[in-house]
């Protein structure tokens, strides 16, 4: 896999992971181009498309698009399931994940991804093992600063807006 992008229906980039060296300018160009292309596609269209000399595999979960660029000989269907497994991991970790979880805890989203995929290849496909690694890391943290009420408040506020989470059964 060459890169993975997560973006919202409004075209806002939520996560970007690049497994090939590219300049910032090139990354921005690619992102713009792909976000535009994919948002223009209708639901029920095929999840794969040819783009430059790569294959794009994408899928929409609620308000978020997950998009991977793989090489010509790579397997499209298994890439689709890589996306799904990543969504499952996020869902399990955050508990019914929604876009806001990924915005406010973007660093966690990156950590989970690193446990699952490394260098663009599946590293650990067992959900249990990935989550175990993340949770172990969480246990290693220092004591959380008290009065995290504000954070909880903001979070709950947004939960109202975004009640549905990422629908795991999304098409």
């Amino acid at each position, binding site marked *: 896999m060459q890169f993975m992008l997560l973006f919202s229906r409004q075209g806002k980039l939520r996560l970007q992971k690049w497994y090939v060296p590219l300049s910032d300018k090139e990354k921005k160009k690619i992102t713009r181009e792909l976000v535009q292309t994919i948002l223009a596609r209708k639901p029920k269209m*095929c999840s794969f498309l*040819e783009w430059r000399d790569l294959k794009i595999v994408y899928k929409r979960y609620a308000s978020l698009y997950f998009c991977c660029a793989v090489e010509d000989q790579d397997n499209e269907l298994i890439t689709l399931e890589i996306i799904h497994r990543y969504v499952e991991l996020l869902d399990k970790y955050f508990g019914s994940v929604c876009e806001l979880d990924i915005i406010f805890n973007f660093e966690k989203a990156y950590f989970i991804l690193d446990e699952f995929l490394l260098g663009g290849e599946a590293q650990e496909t*067992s959900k249990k093992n990935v989550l175990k690694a993340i949770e172990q890391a*969480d246990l290693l943290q220092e004591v959380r600063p008290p009065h995290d009420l504000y954070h909880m408040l903001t979070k709950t506020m947004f939960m109202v807006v975004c009640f549905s989470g990422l629908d795991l059964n999304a098409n």
Partner: protein
Amino acid sequence: MPAVSKGDGMRGLAVFISDIRNCKSKEAEVKRINKELANIRSKFKGDKALDGYSKKKYVCKLLFIFLLGHDIDFGHMEAVNLLSSNKYTEKQIGYLFISVLVNSNSDLIRLINNGIKNDLSSRNPTFMNLALHCIANVGSREMAETFAAEVPGVLVAGETMDSVKQSAALCLLRLYRTSPDLVPMGEWAARVVHLLNDQHLGVVTAAASLITSLAQKSPEEFRTSVSLAVARLSRIVTSASIDLQDYTYYFVAAPWLSVKLLRLLQCYPPPEDAALRSRLTECLETILNKAQEPPKSKKVQHSNAKNAVLFEAISLIIHHDSEPTLLVRACNQLGQFLLHRETNLRYLALESMCTLASSEFSHETVKTHIETVINALKTERDVSVRQRAVDLLYAMCDRSNAKQIVAEMLSYLETADYSIREEIVLKVAILAEKYAVDYTWYVDTILNLIRIAGDYVSEEVWYRVIQIVINRDDVQGYAAKTVFEALQAPACHENLVKVGGYILGEFGNLIAGDSRSSPLVQFNLLHSKFHLCSVPTRALLLSAYIKFINLFPEVKTTIQGVLRSDSQLRNADVELQQRAVEYLRLSCIASTDILATVLEEMPPFPERESSILAKLKKKKGPGNLPGIDDVRRNVNGSAEHGQNAEEAKKVAKGPITQSRSALFVLIPTLDFIFNCWPLLAFPPVPLNQASAFAPLFPVFIFTPDSLNSSSSPGANLLVDVFSDNSAPPTAEVSEENFHRFVCKNNGVIFENQLLQLGLKSEYRQNLGRIYIFYGNKTSTQFLSFSSAAVDPVIEGGAQVQQILNIECVSDFTEAPVLNIQFRYGGALQNIAVKLPVMLNKFFQPTEMASEDFFQRWKQLGAPQQEVQKIFKAKHPMDTEVTKAKILGFGVALLDRVDPNPANFVGAGVIHTKNVQVGCLLRLEPNTQAQMYRLTLRTSRDSVSQRLCDLLSEQF
């Protein structure tokens, strides 16, 4: 489960993110960010030392700002400091910042590497993993230099934890991909293969990717992986779905690992060992059988995972291309998918079938699905699926169904998406040509193409139809009639005007007998389109008119009238004006004979690969065009004529025509005609009285064994310099200056008391041109001069020029010899000079990035592809001189590819008519020992050897 953030909350960060989200406008957002940046900057610069938590928080904010798309130019140092924190989350944020933001040439890389080194040797698996993830994420060359030797050790060490092994395997893979030269192969390689046997499926999953990459580059060293992969695959495929516990995904056993193992097996041919082979076949059969079983779950994840394995198995079956039963079963399975309700599956089935179509075992089975595929073309709602259908139709096309497929594609073209029209046009053009039995069908098809999608018909396509019509006299009359009829349409596409102009200009006489298409009618028809056309088309029409003057004397006055009009003679466009002036003049002063010679019918085009095919290949990239590489074994044997118009154009624009236009005083725009009408300028035109030189255009074609010559008509007067009998064999061949010309093109190749021989040469791809200057150094005439001039006398002190055109047909070693004979005083002089036409003259330099270079270097790793020579320096070892020589040799000099800056690395492609040979070279000077080591790698041993011999003489 509560959705509140797990791990440590960073309140300040959350507040900041909320603020940003609440910004109503972009300006407000930028303002808020600038405020935050100022705040963070002052915190980082402040006197008070920040605690780890604050540092982490601010670094995280910077990261967030960067990910929003803003530039960040500070905070790197603080992030690096976090690496040495002993608090996990601080370290983690430090690493994340570095992975996302640090580019490889950062000054901090040494500090970062230090941090990584500490964590890597910490024996704390969580820290080790963070460090490995960081290396894998950054993957820069600097990191490879520091860690490539260390990571393999971590990977195969017995005491390493499983999770660390997984990270190490993929970390190594990333380093290997970016800097393969820095990853040393060692005894670890053998142990890595055995990770396929590991008990932990996660380890096997990670290792399988690494091994696949390694095996792609050095299959021999990893051959043992085949049996291990088959064994592992067999265990997975036959396992009950619960056996693999968490590695079972929606009732499918370890789908990711299965796909990876099947990929790994695609690096190798079918196993030779019978037992192994039958075990693999069993696996593949089992996978095919499972596709027929009822689904264990209705979830799409179940079917996706199952089919992912199935498609990968089919890829392997196609790769092996050896088991007819499996191929046909695969084909039938894909046939079912063509009708599946899932768009994704239909898409993939069309894609896979494309490759199946190129196998002789399954081609016929694929063909049985033609109706379904045509239906897909008509009914699929998604353009990417329709595109696949077009590809498949193209791949399954053969003699039996060509007419149907071409017709369907043509009718689809009328409604096709704009984005794929050009490609369809190219495909139709290729199929129509390839499978034409009846060339009238071909001509009709191409004219239809222009009618339906004229804007998408590229130059290559209409050049091609003209080439074919010119080369086949059985279709010329029909073509003339058809274009004449097509031009009757009130609005026809400009491309049709071009084709029409060209064909009527050449073959209008074939239909001129009919009063409905008399010369005047033809001319009026063409001229009625003239004013609506662009300049290049008008220029072409003017050439057609002058051809008409030759074909039909009866319309001469009409055409001269048109040429004479102010709108032509005073046209604002200099090209059109010049043509009008010159053609008018030509038609007035030239005798009928001269006119007939100058405007003679075009000679047939040499047979080369179709330029359309080349274009499609370029469009699709190599390897993406199943089934078209067999164009050469075409049954009727007539499909490959014509010439690469693109190439002809390039040549025409190059130096050749410049010299022509200088010589043909009357027709300085011939280069343009040459461009549109490539061979018009070839007939000898005796218009060069003004020139002191006698220009000649013999064409020498080099073949490896013998030097044949075929001369254009103008050269017939000459003694052929390369033929064996042109000089008595007494002359000793002079080659003393030969080696001076390896890296340069101009200079004196031979000199004695009488004669000086100067050369100027220029090369472009596989073509070259040498100007030979014969200088008489004496004050007496040379008589019976046999090599150059039409005039066999060279006056004392005079210089005469000869031009040789050269084409490199395939790679060669021996250089041609020029034999010269003349009489000086009473004595017959014999001189033989080896002409400096060497293989490296046909180099085109190739620029490439470091990773490309090393990837290709590896690919050319077979022993016979490499030639190496160690030799003593003959000249002072000056870097600049060496650089100049390497550039003169014809390759591109690649900077910063070799880790040792003292070394030189170059790349280029040798162009011959038949093949192109990529070539990589490396020159390592050792100033102490005054020695060089030169290494050449090309795909042909003879080329490597020859280039090495040539270049090593230069230093």
